[in-house]
């Protein structure tokens, strides 16, 4: 690393910046393909929902218990807010306002935990109202899709915790901000998938 840093100093700053931009673009491209793969996975889940839905002449199925969509609605708000906070955090990092960046990512982690907690609550409430994973395709879709989504939120949550700790130790600056930006991209993606789920499963 030290020899690399020495080389950086010898180099005219614009060349170093250009090379950094190139490396970041490579990493970004990898992330884009990763998200494309993940998008296809969720597309397959939405496709499954669509097939089940168009093959059923009543939806929700008869006898399906009523439940409140209050918690998912709040959660949509929570995850949108968290994305906004992380977005702000990244722009703080770009300006190297390290304290503001750290605070934003800590707040983001709290929101992520809140989302997972509310999801847990929502699943318990559903089961209490009589809708379980084995309540036919209806229960399967609601539980199965939100489970898979929550697993991705969980991965993001752990990443945010690690990033927050690193931010606390002032690991990140503008020149190595790419890691932070890529995880933020991931988080936005998870948020978008949730909003799609909320609209298609709970509202439509």
């Amino acid at each position, binding site marked *: 690393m030290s020899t*690399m840093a020495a*080389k*950086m100093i010898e*180099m005219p700053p614009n060349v*170093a910046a250009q*090379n950094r931009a*190139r*490396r970041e*673009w*490579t990493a970004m*491209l*990898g992330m884009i*393909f*990763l998200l*494309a*793969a*993940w998008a*296809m*996975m*969720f*597309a*397959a*889940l939405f*496709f*499954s929902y669509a*097939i*089940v*839905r168009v*093959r*059923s*002449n*009543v*939806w929700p*199925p*008869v*006898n*399906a218990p009523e439940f409140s969509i209050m918690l998912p609605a709040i959660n949509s708000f929570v995850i949108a807010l968290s994305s906004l906070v992380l977005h702000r955090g990244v722009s703080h990092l770009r300006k190297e306002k390290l304290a503001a960046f750290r605070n934003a990512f800590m707040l983001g982690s709290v929101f992520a935990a809140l989302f997972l907690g509310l999801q847990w609550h929502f699943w318990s409430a559903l089961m209490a109202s009589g809708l*379980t*994973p*084995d*309540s*036919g*395709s*209806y*229960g*399967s*879709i609601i*539980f*199965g899709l939100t*489970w*898979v989504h929550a697993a991705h939120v969980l991965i993001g949550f752990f990443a945010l915790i690690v990033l927050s700790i690193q931010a606390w130790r002032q690991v990140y600056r503008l020149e190595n901000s790419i890691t932070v930006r890529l995880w933020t991209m991931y988080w936005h993606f998870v948020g978008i998938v949730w909003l799609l789920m909320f609209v298609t499963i709970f509202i439509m």
Partner: protein
Amino acid sequence: MDLQPIHHEPTTFVKKYLFTTDHKVIAKQFLWAGLLFLLWGGLLAMMIRWQWAYPGEKVPVIGDLFLKESGGAITPDLYPKLFTNHGLIMIFWAITPMLIGAFGNYCIPLMIGARDMAFPLLNMLSFWVFVLSQIMVGASFFFDNGAAAAAWISYPPMSGNIGTPGHGQTMMMAAIFVTGVATIMGGINYVTTVIRFRAPGMTWMRLPLTVWGLWLTSVLNVLFVPVLGSAGLLLILDRMFGTQFFVAGANATGTGGDPILFQHLFWIFGHPEVYILILPAWGIVGDVISFFSRKPAYWYKGTVIALIAVTVLSAVVYGHHMFMTGINPLLGQSFMILTLVISIPAEVLFLNWLHTMWKGSIRLTVPMIFALGTVFVFGLGGLTGIFLGTISTDIYLHDTMYVVGHFHYTMAAATFLGTFCAIYFWFPKMFGRKMNPMLGKLHFWFSFIFITLVFGGQLVVGYAGQPRWFFDPYQYTFLQHLQDANIKTSWAAFALLFGQVFFVINFFKSMFAGEEAGDNPWEVGTLEWTIPSPPPVHNFDPIPTVYHGPHEYAHPGVLEKMGKDWLGQDEAFDGIELSASTDEKVAQGA
């Protein structure tokens, strides 16, 4: 700072051979892992062939070793486990790691002039995740009720808790998911590397066809393996957590889901998978035929366009696997037409290969004959596929051995011969030594003749009405007269296995005692042959500049000035843009 820094060669055994980030070593790791599972999948195939020839009789050798409880015979309980694991192992743990894992890793950076993959650490992770999935496959055999038994397609209700109780089937679905993760990791790496790490001058239209094939395969992998992942995940949820996605019932009354849903998800992935497996082989064959015909690949651009067209079309034809599921006839016809349209780009590929050889100075080296064998068997596979893609004939042929013969020609025979074409061609680069051509030719003729006969035999009995997956077809009087044909086919399969002995001897002998290969034993112009065999850790020093396409052969000016009939991609030649001139000649119909 250099964008592709030179890493020092690791000194410890663990870092050099196990947890390595060197794409060339990872390639060899994938090759070993794939060859091992090819042997396993092959032995399972031999047991299936034994069952179809001599049902109920004691299996030689294997029966004594593993089937003591049944007196050496294959039981009705064991039989579905054999064909299920044969199919899955061959596809996900033998062909995929060899064609894509090994040669994707080996060829992409070397052929585009890069020092390594874009994400070396991800590359290492991809291999070890793959190994984990292999361990899971092995473990699936040791649960109560044994290994997976719902056929490679794993349709519910057969793959549900009632069809295949026990954790073996669940473990297999999880293993498929995990190997899918490894494949996607590799795919992301390959796609990004080709986009970002091409050497100066290596334009898209100067890429070797091998790289084109691998790149398109990787795009398909990144986009469609996740769909299989979803299908597997939902199936695991059904088996373990009580959901009812694929449990037959009525959606409207909340009493169940839809088993057909699995078929949709499976084939949205499954059809592209056929092309995922064959595209690298097509690319390799396209290069090798040009190399050993000592002529530029005929209409390179057309070949590339055809490869892209096949890739795109492969994503929109999956319904041809579901003609018998009560699909809307209008939808069925659309899928039929799209399917048949694939034969147009496929024709372009075949004609370009033939045209490349036309009037060439053909050198019948071992990789060349394997390439020609690949073309031949894929031709058979393609032609027999037309009758399955057409609804009216599919109704009769559906679920017969004809289907088995067809997809084995495309997915098994063509990829098998294509993989060996690649092994014989790049072995000198990988290990620095030449393989023995005599043993190679023996291996080829055994493999080529008997693989053609094995799957041809399946086509014939299938056309005569033998359904696939039958434990003992001769319980049915209308199939008894087919036993003779099945016995002959089985003996062709045993001869095919025997022929592999030549390869094993050749492979190990050449690795340690083969003739030194030198940098460029085949006298070809792609970048990997401009560096020592085997290449140093950082491949290129410095990174080469590329002046023209990968197939510059038999150019009269080059012959006159340089005394050789080929030109390296990094050799400038009087500033003449050779690729352009070749393309012009094609345009003029020369």
